[in-house]
């Protein structure tokens, strides 16, 4: 029997972008409000899981074409690199820097290197969650 779940697939296509934008918001707002790299990464992973549920594993893999193990390695490298960068300029390990910048669209913005560490956490959480789900879904 040929199954037809057009409502589920159309809903998943729209809701994916809503969840993804909300996860970006949670990740960016983590410095001043609840949220951060871990919750943002889990939300991004759940958005991709929604696409995997609505479509199949092969379609999502050809759509994204990301090796999630490389994503984990990139996140760990970013976190360790951010943490060890101050040792090269004569500061202790894990010293963070911040300054105020005049950005063209956002105005006077405070940029902090803790955000780079958080981006590493985000990539590791996305990679680990999707590696687990993909390797469970692939075996028969």
């Amino acid at each position: 029997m040929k199954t037809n779940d057009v409502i589920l697939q159309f809903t998943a296509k729209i809701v994916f972008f809503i969840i993804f934008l909300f996860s970006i918001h949670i990740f960016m707002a983590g410095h001043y409000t609840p949220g951060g790299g871990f919750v943002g990464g889990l939300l991004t992973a759940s958005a991709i899981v929604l696409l995997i549920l609505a479509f199949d594993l092969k379609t999502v893999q050809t759509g994204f074409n990301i090796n999630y193990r490389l994503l984990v390695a990139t996140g760990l490298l970013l976190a360790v690199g951010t943490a060890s960068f101050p040792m090269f300029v004569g500061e202790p390990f894990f010293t963070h820097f911040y300054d105020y910048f005049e950005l063209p669209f956002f105005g006077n913005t405070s940029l902090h290197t803790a955000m780079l560490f958080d981006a590493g956490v985000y990539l590791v959480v996305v990679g680990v969650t999707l590696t687990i789900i993909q390797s469970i879904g692939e075996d028969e």
Partner: protein
Amino acid sequence: MKETILLLAVALFFVAIALSVYRIVKGPSMPDRAIALDTIAVNLISSIAIVSVLLSTKAFLDAILILGILSFIGTISFSKYIERGVLIERKRND
């Protein structure tokens, strides 16, 4: 006065959640249980909203949105498992 009304609303939501738990335990078929779980998630979202009014904080609004997203994905995966018997298809065969 306002706090009494809000506490009463939370208590009534707990009653609704307890009735849904009875449906999960007793429910004759699996779709009954899936819908009861979805109802529990909706009632929990409302309870979180009322608690955040009680504590007069805005910190729980993200939790409300995340719980809505997770209950949506959970209900979809439950219903797909009940209907197809498989959650993640490797390749669509049509």
